[in-house]
């Protein structure tokens, strides 16, 4: 059973000159996590906004838990949770006030709202800060409260739009922990991210989107394979290049690249650190001391570059959407 289906979604701003969604297709199996990976301006936020009933697509069809988001938005809103790129909570109010308010808006009784607020504050380690205004919270705490607010009704389908953008490494780790816990509870999750590492950590499957459509889809491993896995790189003095090449050939056996200028020999490897240790051992046996030796993993930039043919753009998606709107007015 598919929890989310998007078929041929189109959405353009500024009288068609800015195509935010350009025939986007995706689906998410119930109880799984899909990471939507893409550079700024690729259409990630627009996708989430359409699926969460905030934006009507120009054409195409989308369903969440089998309910059409355009025809039956109210029914969709009853079963989804949304946590956006910006912590959308009332900053002047306390964490407690916010959870009660959103609980009431989900039509819980005052008592039910209180019970749920206590549970959620506990779950997200915010009990001690419950009575403080949100504006005194750290970035990570704000995000956790925002996430808590989107979980009040225990949604079937959860949308997280760049849940860790702007957080420090510690905050990001915490957030990953929290999200992983949630996923164990069986919620269907669609999350957008700019970081391959994040998608890798959290998602069962990854859809790479660019210019408003999905350009690659698969598990993290299969995508990395598509991009090319790890490479062994050795830099040696000029006179050892030939010998080093033979050593690399023994380990990798394929597509060895020699850069005379950099005095660098590199080749794809599949055995990871084992290959590295073996290379070091063989070099040592022959009395060759490498100037540099290491394994290079594909960086998120490498992934974007090889899948999209360009690096992440400077312009943010939001700029694009807002400027498009303002001009079309």
């Amino acid at each position: 059973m598919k929890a989310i289906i998007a078929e041929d979604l189109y959405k353009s701003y500024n009288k068609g000159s800015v195509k935010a969604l350009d025939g986007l297709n995706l689906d998410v199996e119930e109880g799984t996590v899909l990471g939507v990976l893409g550079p700024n301006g690729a259409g990630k936020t627009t996708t989430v906004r359409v699926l969460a009933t905030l934006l009507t697509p120009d054409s195409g069809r989308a369903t969440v838990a089998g309910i059409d988001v355009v025809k039956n938005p109210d029914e969709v809103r009853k079963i989804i949770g949304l946590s956006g790129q910006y912590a959308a909570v009332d900053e002047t109010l306390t964490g407690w006030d916010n959870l009660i308010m959103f609980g009431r808006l989900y039509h819980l009784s005052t008592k039910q709202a209180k019970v749920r607020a206590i549970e959620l504050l506990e779950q997200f380690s915010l009990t001690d800060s419950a009575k403080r205004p949100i504006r005194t919270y750290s970035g990570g705490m704000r995000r956790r409260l925002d996430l808590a607010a989107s979980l009040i009704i225990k949604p079937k389908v959860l949308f997280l739009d760049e849940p860790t953008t702007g957080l420090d490494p510690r905050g990001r780790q915490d957030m990953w922990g929290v999200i992983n816990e949630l996923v164990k509870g069986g919620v269907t999750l669609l999350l957008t991210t700019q970081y391959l590492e994040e998608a890798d950590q959290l998602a069962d499957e990854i859809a790479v989107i660019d210019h408003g459509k999905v350009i690659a889809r698969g598990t993290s491993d299969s995508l990395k394979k598509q991009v090319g896995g790890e490479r062994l790189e050795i830099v040696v003095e000029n006179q050892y290049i030939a010998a080093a090449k033979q050593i690399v050939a023994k380990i990798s056996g394929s597509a060895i690249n020699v850069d005379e200028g950099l005095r660098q020999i590199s080749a794809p490897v599949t055995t990871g650190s084992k290959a590295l240790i073996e290379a070091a051992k063989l070099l040592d046996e022959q009395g060759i001391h490498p100037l540099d030796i290491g394994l290079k993993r594909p960086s998120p930039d490498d992934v974007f570059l090889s899948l999209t043919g360009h690096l992440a753009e400077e312009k943010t998606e939001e700029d694009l959407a807002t400027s498009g709107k303002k001009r079309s007015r």
Partner: protein
Amino acid sequence: MSAVMDAIVITKRQLLQLTRVPEVLLFSTIQPIMFVLLFRYVFGGSIDTGQPGGYVQLLMPGIFVQTVAFTLAGTAVGLAADMQKGLIDRFRSLPISRSAVVFGRTLGDGALNIVVLTAMGITGFIVGWRPSSGFFNIVLGFIFLLVFGFAMSWVGVIIGLSVREERVAQNATFIAVFPLTFLSNAFAPTTGMPKPLQYVAEWNPVSTMVAGCRELFGLTNEFGATAGSFPSENPLLMSLIYMVIIMAIFIPLSVRKYNKASK
């Protein structure tokens, strides 16, 4: 009625904000009080009104109306801030009535006027304001003011959701409301204005409101160029008509705007 309940939750949120950040209430009360004192003592001495009790009798209804007209600003700024921070997005993703957020907001801003008007009324009394029309009419006068503030708040919804930025909302509303309140009979008789401006001033809803309130508080009001016209003869009725028109236009427009709102 869950739509009403939803709106009440939003209104409650606003009142809760006031308790969390009391400065907001403090300053939104101090400002009109300051106006009362400034006008009373700066202009009061030099404007000969011919009214028993002096300028302050004419001033108070004028300044009441100006203050409630500025309700629009509070609404616009509040909604623009919610928009900017993404709160409107969250509200729109909830299974609540499509009009709850804007109704809750305008009700909250309208309710805040009760506090502000009370503080102003007391200040006015201290500096010599003595409405002479009896309890019933005085209360009716304040009800008129509250409804006018509520109507103006809906204009603020459109502004706030259109500009989507707090500071722009602040400036935009000031530019919209300030001339409206001064191009009126609120602080000085319109009879001193150039003729064409008198027509504008006297048909201005602020003027009919001021004239209407003066009537309810026991004063007569002078009309210059438009003497004998419908608004000059029936300021209260005309004010009611204006309020109905404003709400009939801006309530549906606001609800529509909110549902299309996009950060």
